[in-house]
């Protein structure tokens, strides 16, 4: 993506790297601009902390996630249970750390899958006219109209055992969930990208690139895409939170991870019936999802500002 900053949304002819400042390469320029975006930098730090926390957390807080202790039901945060306990007396901090790995991985991976497919399909549809566009939009419409629940049941029924054999219980479910969530969420991105492409492909700077002999692929990747990226970044960042939440819906339907694996979305779901008496149970997973969403969104904002060469920061 870094290289694409060259193609600014102006009528200027395309310039090769030689003509830009010799001191900074385009990738570095973007990084420099990104660094100046304070919120984005802070958010990167928060996200890094969250990821680090769930990765090395089990060593710092070596408490079993499924240690049932009926004498410690629904306890509020204390030294022995910093995040409190749930209704079986299980330690919530340990569960948050364990579930965070899955939630973060599912959220980010599903976002990449959905965004990638959305961009590819949207871009091809937006550039081509006629049959290709019609066909791709038909596929999009089809996916939009499929009732998700029966479809999920069907997918799981067909593929669960094979994936389990290939990747193990958790690995198989992970692949399945990422593919399922990604596979059911790319349509809005595709529609957005297509709409942007249809508008941008007629703009002067694309004409100019065309006149310079840019291939269709080059026009798409280097000239139009960077200008269409705004809504895509928004969609992608929203995707992360909706994937984390969608995962919990899936496991509620028995389609996700086994019921004893405490992902953030599932913790939030389990906590809802105790919201009035044990709000801490819902507070921590809710806050974790919020922080993730918040930081990813600000990183998205920073990225987009950094990628826009005309924006003065």
């Amino acid at each position, binding site marked *: 993506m870094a290289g694409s900053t060259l193609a600014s949304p102006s009528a200027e002819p395309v310039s090769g790297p030689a003509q830009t400042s010799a001191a900074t390469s385009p990738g570095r320029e973007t990084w420099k601009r990104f660094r100046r975006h304070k919120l984005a930098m802070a958010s990167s730090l928060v996200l890094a902390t969250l990821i680090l926390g769930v990765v090395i957390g089990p060593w710092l807080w070596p408490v079993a996630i499924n240690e049932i202790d009926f004498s410690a039901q629904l306890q509020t945060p204390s030294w022995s249970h910093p995040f409190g306990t749930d209704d079986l007396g299980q330690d919530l901090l340990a569960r948050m750390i364990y579930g965070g790995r899955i939630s973060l991985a599912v959220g980010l991976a599903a976002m990449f899958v959905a965004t990638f497919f959305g961009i590819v399909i949207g871009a091809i549809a937006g550039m081509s*006219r006629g049959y290709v566009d019609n066909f791709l939009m038909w596929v999009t419409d089809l996916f939009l109209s499929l009732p998700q629940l029966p479809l999920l049941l069907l997918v799981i029924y067909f593929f669960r055992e094979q994936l389990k054999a290939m990747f193990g219980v958790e690995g198989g479910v992970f692949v399945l969930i990422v593919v399922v969530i990604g596979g059911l969420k790319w349509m*809005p991105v595709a529609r957005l990208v297509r709409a942007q492409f249809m508008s941008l492909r007629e703009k002067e700077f694309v004409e100019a690139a065309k006149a310079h002999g840019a291939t269709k692929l080059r026009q798409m990747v280097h000239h139009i895409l960077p200008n269409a990226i705004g809504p895509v970044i928004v969609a992608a960042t929203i995707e992360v939170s909706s994937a984390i939440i969608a995962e*919990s819906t899936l496991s509620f339907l028995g389609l996700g991870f086994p019921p004893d694996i405490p992902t953030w979305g599932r913790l939030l779901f389990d906590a809802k019936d105790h919201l009035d008496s044990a709000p801490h149970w819902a507070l921590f997973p809710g806050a974790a999802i919020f922080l993730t969403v918040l930081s990813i969104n600000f990183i998205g904002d920073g990225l987009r500002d950094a990628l826009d060469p005309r924006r003065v920061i």
Partner: protein
Amino acid sequence: MGAYLLRRLLIALPSLLGISLILFTVLAMAPGDPFSEMATNPNVPPEVREALRASFGLNDPIMVRYLRWLSNMVQGDWGFSFASRINVDRLILQRVPTTLFVVGSSQILALCIALPVGIYAATRPYSIFDQVANTLAFVGFSLPTFFTGLLLILIFSVWLDWFPFVYRSDLAATGWRWYWEMFRQAIMPITVLGLFQAASYTRYVRSAVLDVIRLDYVTTARAKGLGEKTVTLRHITRNALIPVVTLVALQMPAVFGGAIVTEQIFRIPGIGSLLIDAILANDTPVIMAVTFVFACLVVLFNLIADILYGWLDPRISFS
């Protein structure tokens, strides 16, 4: 334009046919059958379940069932529900007004919030207003509706006792009282749905406006000495609307399709709860009818969005 429209409509027919075939196949192959409720009851002999399967035609090959569905559908017969044994069209029509009202109002609410907030935030990026609006939007879409719905119920129904949380389709009151009761029971679900939708709309609007605001022609418009208001409304907004139109077109079919989670929480008798009940009971004729109407709306609104693109940006050609 007319020729284009005609062509698109003609393409829509076979594409809907294709969608219906795939929908039907998915539903027919999906696991489960409509008899799970009596499964552990020793009073229902297995032969009854088998006889019912046969009488509902569940033992026929999928293609035979599809063709039967299609030919009936063409004649206006949508089949009958396995669960309630009444005609599907009647079931759906009972639910349409409530769904249109609740989900429609929430969409309007979402747009009324998102458009002004998004535009204003984008014209002053990183101002206090922008930061607050953004943060609220993040809260909005990182909390699932099952959670916000419950929170509102706890606050406004259980603690404050202001609103009922069970939605009734047949309010006993008349006249002004009816409107008041309707308002009281509809406000929470509409708020939950509307704010959730507004959160993501706001982000899209802000982003789209930011994209346009620094293009050359906006600078040109400003240089011509046009007022800030005119520039924002006539030049920026119109061009920024393309992603917004796309999203609204994506959401419009949901106004018919309902909102499954919110309808469950507030017991709203909408299409969403009909659909989820039908799915859980494997009531295929109902699922098929709802999803097929939904599919028609998806195709229709995609077409409408394409036409609107041409109007918003005349350079987009469909030739």
